[in-house]
């Protein structure tokens, strides 16, 4: 690890000040489950690390505007147990899939939402876009875990966030604060992520000096949700593909639905057309399968990841069925 200053703010205002009162590179430390490792590999090399763990307002879960706000430093374990979140089942499914009490205790929602890609070229020091001498390493090398959607530009990694698909399906927004202490903006999470054309653009609209203070979830209402992650291993492992669905059934037919795939594109991937064909129909196994086919119909797999299209298809079908309490039919 390179040397850095360590800052420990106790309020959001202090945190923003510490992020912005100097010229150097600053990293925000939440749960530390990824940042410490990124710093050890010198993939992130801040001059200052701002540790948010002592800002109490960032660790709250409470009702707000008919919905629920979850502080960005809330741990997965705190989410799992919280009575205000029981209706948002897709989030619980993700937490249950993170099979490590250590990560459940240390990992934070904000840390997950901002998690940098796990692309092995990025993690080996070839940069976010893994371009070497003008050639895409992902395109020409081993891309078995890379994107099958949204991969026609320079970015071919997959978005690492495990909560984002579920949160987007619920219509969640992120509250971004800073750089100025009085700046605060609510951004739908769906539009938070970007597919960078250049490495310095990063993976989200978050600018230097900004923080996520919390995530806001609208009221669950009559909607039901599920997340289905295709996990090769039963222990701590990253999904090969995932999908989350949020469905409202009225009179036996689908009144509203939102399907979001994860780990298949540089951003969470909303399957708009797949959702549309379900509207006004009963959500049967066949209908779910048909929606799943549509969800992956525009996939553009790379040389060695065609199998992920099938995984995404399965994830969509199973997330839909799981959301309405049907047996999803897998192992």
């Amino acid at each position, binding site marked *: 690890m390179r040397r850095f200053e360590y800052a420990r703010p106790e309020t959001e205002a202090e945190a923003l000040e510490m992020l912005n009162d100097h010229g150097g590179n600053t990293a925000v430390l939440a749960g530390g489950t990824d940042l410490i490792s990124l710093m050890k590999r010198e993939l992130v090399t801040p001059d200052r690390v701002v540790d948010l763990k002592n800002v109490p*307002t960032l660790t709250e879960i409470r009702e707000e*505007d008919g919905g629920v706000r979850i502080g960005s430093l809330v741990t997965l374990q705190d989410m799992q147990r919280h009575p205000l979140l029981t209706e948002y089942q897709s989030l619980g499914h993700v937490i249950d899939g993170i099979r490590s009490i250590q990560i459940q205790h240390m990992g934070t929602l904000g840390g997950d939402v901002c998690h940098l890609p796990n692309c092995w070229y990025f993690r080996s020091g070839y940069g976010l876009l893994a371009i070497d001498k003008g050639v895409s390493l992902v395109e020409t090398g081993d891309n078995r875990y890379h994107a099958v959607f949204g991969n026609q530009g320079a970015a071919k990694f997959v978005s690492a966030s495990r909560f984002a698909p579920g949160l987007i399906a619920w219509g969640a927004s992120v509250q971004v604060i800073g750089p100025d202490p009085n700046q605060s903006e609510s951004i739908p999470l769906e539009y938070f992520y970007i597919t960078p054309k250049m490495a310095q653009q990063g993976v989200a609209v978050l600018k230097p000096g900004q923080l996520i203070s919390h995530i806001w979830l609208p009221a669950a209402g009559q909607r039901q949700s599920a997340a289905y992650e295709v996990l090769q291993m*039963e222990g701590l492992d990253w999904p090969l593909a995932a999908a989350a669905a949020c469905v409202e059934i009225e009179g036996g037919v689908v009144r509203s639905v939102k399907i979001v795939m994860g780990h298949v594109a540089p951003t969470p991937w909303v399957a708009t057309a797949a959702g549309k064909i379900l509207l006004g129909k009963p959500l049967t196994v066949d209908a779910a399968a048909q929606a799943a086919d549509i969800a992956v119909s525009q996939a553009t797999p790379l040389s060695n990841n065609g199998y992920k299209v099938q995984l995404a298809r399965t994830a969509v079908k199973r997330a839909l069925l799981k959301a309405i309490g049907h047996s999803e039919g897998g192992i």
Partner: protein
Amino acid sequence: MWDRKDQNRSGPSFNRRDFLKGSGAAVAATAMATSNELAAQDKTKSKIASAEPATITLNVNGKDYDVTVEPRVTLLEVLRNDLNFTGCKEVDDRGTDGADTVLMDGKATLAGSRLAIECVGKKIQTVESLRKGNEVDPVVEGFVKHDAMQCGFCTPGFVMATRAFLNEHPTATLDEIRAGLGGNICRCGTYAGITACALELAQKGGA
């Protein structure tokens, strides 16, 4: 770029300054634990530790230890190299193996994914604390009884993860055990013994 209506739905904007003022008292009450290097004039500046080595105090197994380290030094390194609590092992730098598990304020924590300076004011418990004289924690006893070890290198981390897991799930089922202890890796393949140990303790209420 996005639908403004969506944005409005996510809650009215509020005056952040007022909000911060309102919660100021509570924040001040949770003053940061003392650490020598942070004593300075400016309130904000005092919360910034320079990149240079400084003395911090860590509470490990109920005892305070002063160590002089840079902020970039991890808790794992301090425990192993400065304080000689070598039951905590370094295996991978990605936080995926659990061999560096300690309890921090009672919760299973990866010492390799925490900076030492973050841990000032926390109660850190290492695996060495599970033996006092001839008395050992029931988890240790169970690991020995069920031969939940071979080379033994992952064992201390697994013992701590199991201890933390049973503290939180004293009556866990087999499936819960299998899901809960998925953050640790054993290369020799001692999972059968660990499962048997955890299940037996869970049937006795977590011991």
